């Protein structure tokens, strides 16, 4: 008999991929769940009821910091109501390490220094801290099909010449996790035997951001890649980022999508590109017996998907 897996945040790109993977498996039956935002169908009570009926919960809520916090809080309350020691796989983020540099394992101190998302993810992890049967996953930057932030958006910027070789600004370590690897890790976490209480880094830095941009641009055919000057980056941050963000939000509000809008190159994006942080993922590699997708293969699959789904 198939296991029923409740997926909170099933409409975002990670959720969609997880649903696809669960459906494709011979052991799982995904149960999509939206408990945050205007399309919410679950309140705490409904969520608690649902917990009685499933074997595990995956929380992959994304979106605003508020929604990340709210979903974890709601899940915690629902668990309290049911007193059910169900397996939870909670997808957090590497942003919880803040501005740390160097090699970072799961024991590293958490910090909200990198902004509101980091604060929200730390808070969400804390809500679930007392639950005894969980795997908290801290993924690196997700790339691959469906990944808006680190694939689709980057591809658009590379193709339009707004992004390229950033010089010193792109020397940071590019910690990546291919979306399929993330899904595999989540599914394996669901099936880990017995009660478990683990936190796992997913993804690693095998290149710098400059190297990632160059490699991706080559596969996309967005060549020759441009050298983006400091002056240009400063202009993007100082003068273009705010109006483009506004345009993006209003377009999203009016048309339900902002894919045609050139997204803002923000200071937080550039901070990521220069941060010298190397996630250590040996725990996940061993515990989940992971075989990570090499970046060049991941990029080729991403480019193929982008080509097939050109919007």
């Amino acid at each position, binding site marked *: 008999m198939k296991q029923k897996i409740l997926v909170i945040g099933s409409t975002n790109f990670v959720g969609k991929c997880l649903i696809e993977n669960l459906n494709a498996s011979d052991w799982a039956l995904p149960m999509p769940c939206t408990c945050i935002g205007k399309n919410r169908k679950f309140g705490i009570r409904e969520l608690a009821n649902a917990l009685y009926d499933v074997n595990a919960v995956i929380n992959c809520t994304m979106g605003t910091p508020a929604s990340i916090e709210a979903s974890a809080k709601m899940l915690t309350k629902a668990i309290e109501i049911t007193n059910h020691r169900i397996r939870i796989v909670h997808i957090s983020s590497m942003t919880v390490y803040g501005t740390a*540099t160097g090699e970072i394992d799961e024991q590293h101190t958490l910090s909200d220094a990198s902004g509101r998302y980091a604060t929200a993810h730390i808070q969400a992890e804390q809500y679930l801290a007392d639950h005894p049967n969980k795997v908290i996953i801290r993924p690196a930057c997700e790339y691959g099909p469906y990944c808006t932030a680190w694939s689709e958006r980057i591809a658009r910027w590379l193709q339009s010449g707004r992004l*390229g*070789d950033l*010089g*010193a600004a792109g*020397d940071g370590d590019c910690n990546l996790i291919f979306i399929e690897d993330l899904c595999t890790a989540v599914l394996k976490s669901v099936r880990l035997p017995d009660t478990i209480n683990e936190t796992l880094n997913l993804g690693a830095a095998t290149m710098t951001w400059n190297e990632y941009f*160059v490699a991706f*641009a*080559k596969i996309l055919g967005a*060549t*020759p*890649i*441009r*050298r*983006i*000057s*400091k*002056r240009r980056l400063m202009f993007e941050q100082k003068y273009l980022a705010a109006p483009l963000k506004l345009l993006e939000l209003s377009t999203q509000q009016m048309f339900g999508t902002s894919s045609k809008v050139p997204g803002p190159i923000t200071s937080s994006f550039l901070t990521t590109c*220069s941060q*010298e942080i190397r996630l250590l993922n040996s725990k996940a590699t061993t515990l989940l017996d992971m075989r990570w997708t090499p970046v060049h293969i991941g990029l080729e699959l991403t480019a193929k998907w982008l080509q097939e789904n050109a919007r």
Partner: protein
Amino acid sequence: MSIDKNLTWQRILIIDAGDVDVTQPLSADICIVGSGAAGISLALKLADSGLAVLLLEAGGLKAEPETQTLYSGSVTNTLLHSPPDTYRQRRFGGTTTIWGGRCMPFDEIDFEKREYIPHSDWPISLEDLEPYYPEANRLCEAGEYAYTMDSAFNTPRPPMIEGFESENFSTHTLERFSCPTDFGMRYIHKLRSARNIQLVLHANVINIQAGANGKNITGLTISTRDGKRHQILARTYVLATGGLETARLLLSNNDVHKNGLGNDHDVVGRYYMCHIAGTIGTLHINRPLTSLWHGYDISDDGVYCRRRIALRPGTQRNQQIGNFVARLHHPRITLPEHKNAILSLLYLAKPFIPYEYAKRLHGDDRASFGTWLKHVRNVCAGPFDAAGFAWHMLRDRKFADRKFPSIIIKPKAPIFSLDFHAEQQPNINSRITLGEEKDIFGVARINVDWRYTHGDVDTVSRSIALLAEDMKNTKIGRLEYNPESVEYEMTRYGAYGGHHIGTARMGTDRHTSVVNSHCRLHDIENLYVASSAVFPTSSQANPTLTIVALSLRLAEHLKNTAA
């Protein structure tokens, strides 16, 4: 100027020697003197190695005229060599703050012992250096380590000269161009983030103390310009101060070694080489302009690449001459007869072009008012060409981070001059010595006595003659030049500026070399040299990429030795 005040290894990364407590020596595992391409590459490779590294820089973060004058010295023949305070920079980043960015590895033949090139023998081969070239390429921001058309480009490109097939010359090798990268500004954040590297600015090394037995170095004395002195203690010392200053430092420290450090056999400062370069002749090509490509190709990673006409190794051996490359070039700028608005604009812009570049663009020719007027007339006759070029230079060079490397003029007819760059042979009488004059620290200034040989003239003469013959035989075109003028043209602007090679050469025989294959002085256990000073021969290639590769190799050796 103080950048980081607290003097602890964990926190301070950049300090000023003037702010350091003089009662406490600065100590480290490895002390690197000089923060140019070699010093910074070495430090970066040692980052997070667990070894405490002191990186000493005589200058500040920016150019300082008073510091730069510490490089001045004398030249025996000023027609043959530029003043020693030009083409090199005493500041953080060193000469990478003004370099042109041309990168290419040495060829296999450059490392060989060639009986016909006196003193040509490296104790290492290309194979020993090859593992370090890709990383050197990355540090120089010259893209992939791919130096042939086939390896650098996925899509076919038009040939350099359609139909030119020669047994003597190839046209498929490339030179790649760095941004050009100022190593100081580009990698300062990396040095800051490395927890084991401390950069000390305004640290002029004025004394290198050898132990009583002469077999090791026990310390350095550094001084600021205003006389504040400090002691530096390290287990290992590396001189990464360029080909001229390395010789000066070795020769001027003669307390224990009476002839200077590493100079028991009078080798330090000798065999001084630059490159032999010039522009010659008129090359008429019997092909339409569409069959020629003399400009830059841009690789997928955005790097400017340029093809050259390169003398094949087999021909070098058969002809018993040195290495040689040539490029298709524009007519001589100074002659207004070219009637080219762009070249005349460049001529008129001479006062705004840095000395190091203006010299080769214009020479030191004194032009008459009439010549000047003719150039003005050329510009007036082609205002759109001149304006277009000015815009291109502003957009693609002045304001670009990755700069268009040089002047490329699209000719109106397939007529070019030939720009050549050749190997200079090691010559024991071409040398750096200490002069009579001393600097403010009492350290003797250098005298440069650069000399070339008949062998050098022979390399250029015979290469050009071969090329002229090949052009004729393949019916590609004709190279018109006066064979008698070769020696004049190859020395018209003197030694190629900025390539200071061979003054502390590498070898196995301590009678004819200064350092061993790991760049360590033969008889001093803890003193190394990271510089083109150690190159036994000069190749046709510009030295920076190989300097960086050798420095990376040295860093690995130092790490292994420490382990």
